[in-house]
């Protein structure tokens, strides 16, 4: 069931697509705020510049964590687009994320320490919902294989409407968008010291930026699964979801981590129970 083509395509194309999405993101955000905004290719210029900067670190281990984060994020996405097991994809994602957290911890810096703790809270906040989403897909399609889920003939979102909404909710956390960008943010106005990435600089920071592009493409791929019955509708839906996230991002200010945690769990529990129970009693399983 594993398709190497999907994996290779992801590895090669995802940074390009992810970078472009980031560029479009900034452009649209700027327009929402009444600014002109940077050129679409600006994220590439930024990352290119980061790679030219002097290589400074707080300690030698940091590079190892950043590289591991990068590699396991690619692994996650590649496994996903190769049509692998969805649960294994989620576990690989967690592993990648943990490396970033450890990198932040290792720096022995107050700012990145707070970022690391908050990043962990974020992971704790979103993970149940992601697993519930995967389980929901399994209940409908009888398979955890991304390949089989994607080739399911009926629109999954019709079976999993509540879970889909729950997933959109935590997607805000994963994309590091306001109001849930508690560990680090893309907005310059939100903070000067960038939480979990505070102590990463130059090429290592560039690597983390590229990793985020990979992650964005993977996450949008996850959203696509809900609409995979028709590629056209799927892509439109993904675009609309991303626009919605942008709107939320620009229309809200950061909230406290307590609220992130509580609301994500509450929503995950409610939509998970309601949707899975409904599927169970309606005899879909």
């Amino acid at each position, binding site marked *: 069931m594993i398709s190497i083509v999907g994996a290779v395509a992801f590895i090669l194309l995802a940074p390009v697509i992810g970078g472009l999405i980031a560029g479009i993101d900034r452009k649209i955000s700027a327009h929402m705020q009444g600014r002109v905004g940077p050129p679409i290719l600006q994220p590439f210029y930024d990352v290119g510049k980061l790679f030219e900067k002097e290589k400074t670190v707080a300690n*030698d281990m940091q590079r190892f964590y950043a590289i591991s984060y990068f590699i396991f994020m690619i692994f996650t996405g590649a496994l996903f687009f190769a049509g692998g097991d969805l649960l294994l994809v989620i576990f690989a994602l967690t592993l990648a994320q943990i490396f970033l957290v450890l990198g932040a911890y290792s720096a022995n810096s107050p700012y990145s320490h707070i970022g690391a703790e908050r990043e962990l809270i974020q992971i704790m906040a979103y993970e149940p919902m992601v697993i519930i989403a995967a*389980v929901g897909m399994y209940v409908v399609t009888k398979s955890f294989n991304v390949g089989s889920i994607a080739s399911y003939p009926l629109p999954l979102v019709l079976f999993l409407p509540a879970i889909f909404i729950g997933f959109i909710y935590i997607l805000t956390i994963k994309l590091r968008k306001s109001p849930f960008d508690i560990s680090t943010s893309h907005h310059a106005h939100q903070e000067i010291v960038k939480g979990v990435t505070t102590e990463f600089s130059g090429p290592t920071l560039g690597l983390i930026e590229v990793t985020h592009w990979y992650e964005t493409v993977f996450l949008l791929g996850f959203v696509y699964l809900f609409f995979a019955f028709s590629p056209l509708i799927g892509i439109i839906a993904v675009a609309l979801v991303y626009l919605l996230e942008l709107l939320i991002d620009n229309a809200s200010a950061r909230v406290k981590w307590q609220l992130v945690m509580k609301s994500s769990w509450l929503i995950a529990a409610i939509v998970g129970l309601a949707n899975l129970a409904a599927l169970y009693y309606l005899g879909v399983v």
Partner: protein
Amino acid sequence: MQLLLFLILGPLITAIFMLLVRKDQERNWIVKLSALGIGAVTILLLGSYGDKGTLYFSFAAESTGLFMFLIEMVIAVFILYLGIKYKNYLVVGLTLLQSAMMVYFEVFYAHTIDVKYSLFIDQFSIIMALIIGIIGSLICVYALSYMKDFHEHHKELPDRRNIFFCIMFAFLSAMFGLVFSNNLLWVLFFWEITTLCSFLLIGYTKTEEATNNAFTALWMNLLGGVAFVVAILYLATQAGGIMGLGEVLASGKAIVLIPVVLIGFAGLTKAAQLPFSSWLVGAMVAPTPVSALLHSSTMVKAGVYILVRLAPVFQATFSGYVLAFIGAITFLLASAIAISQSNAKRVLAYSTIANLGLIVACAGIGTYEAIWAAILLIIFHAISKSLLFLSVGTVEHRIESRDIEDMNGLIIRMPRIAALMVIGIAGMFLAPFGMLISKWAAIQAFIDAPYGFLFVIILAFGSALTLFFWAKWMGRLLVVTPKQENLETNIDSNIWLALISLGGLTAITCFIFPAISSTLIEPFLLQNYGNVTQLSQDNVIIMIMMLFMIVLLPLSILMPQRKHRHLTPYMGGMTTNPDMSFYGAIGLKRDMKLSNYYITSWFGEVKLQTLGIYLCTGLIGIMFVSAAYLGVII
């Protein structure tokens, strides 16, 4: 059968020697030789019985039965004496109740019971024997050095190491007996011995706290023992005297459900499930090898062993679901409580309780997939948890603290021990290591069971909680602090032997678990459930790829690279020294100190434990009522 008897009696002989030997050197040799012998024989056992399926052995049951009864009475008198001495009348009452029932059984029913085969062996027994034999022996070897240090650190305590090692080996013997017994009377006998051993080991230091906690452990486990005896009386009077484990499983659910639920209750007490979790947390006062032994290869594993054994009876019954629910709630609440703990041993204790909860949930569901997950959990948990306990114990003796906050930057101070701890922690929650594979299997098992979605949701939340407390601990260990003194010198070779073996096992079992599954677990499932499950080939290959990446990535540090400029971390523009101290207000020099989140307002121990005790006590009530209802009506 010789091998079985060797494993039961061998440790017992060592135990007697231990009592007599008082010289360090002699003790060292005997313990090491016994450990080697026990470990070797368990592997031999795997070699000679691994592919044989279930084999039963008859044994002189009648005389042995009488002998066991007499020992039980001696133990009862001993516990009564201690109970009266320490004025613990709950223990006295429970012991009297249990003994009265045992005497009643012995006088009126014992002669009517005829168990043809007292001993048996199958793949699950072999797995348990390997865990007890290898991990248990390694812990004993570790204890040699640890206890020496322990008494150097605690001069005020009397050196009773001969008794300590005697009980440790008696414990192993009882565990072997437990997993090889087909006769439920024998199971009960060994069951009670493990209760007694753990009581004595927890109270080893004889401090007031230790004694109190030992009695807590005792009364909770005696309560389980009472339920076990009631189950045996029920079997003798109502179920026509079925007393073999195999026969119990083979007879109809309606006949054996009530006794099985009673034994299941005993399993819950021994596995420290809510509401009985406090004894295992209290047991942390004991020296670390005891904790390691109780948590990984003995005691609590006896509880889940019996539950997994009886799982076919629980399967698809309401009582089974309630049992699974008790486990699931324990998993969720214990994981949450672990977040609020900064004492490393207490974190480990709550994590054990949580993981046992997961195993109980699997046993209660009782499908072949759930049992596959449960056995994997037992294996992987035993290895990683013993590694973690022994590492924490070693660290504790060096830094004089078991607080996680004091382990800040351990990777600089004790690099090798810290690396082993990181392996152990990774083994508990990260892909592609053992516990995660098991949790994965559990998700799969739950979702395929009726009403399983409830359990999947609990599992999803619970594992997010475990991730938080493990990751923050790991982060604390891996903080790169300014250069500090290396505390790792003069750690004894016994300690290294145990730690490195367990660290190696943690990694190796991840590589070879498909083989463990196909040679031991799957035949067991096929025989008991007629169905097998496994991870697909693709997934196994991907996991092994991940494992290789994790092993290879750290080597990247060794690669030649251009020197990177080192800068001190950002401190908000404050002038900072390389040792991360800074000048605060009015020019005072201050040290920077970072500390983890514990979120006690949400995950406070008292609050959640109280909630759990009420919930799970209620559920246990429902479990009994439902079993009685089914057993009486049908």
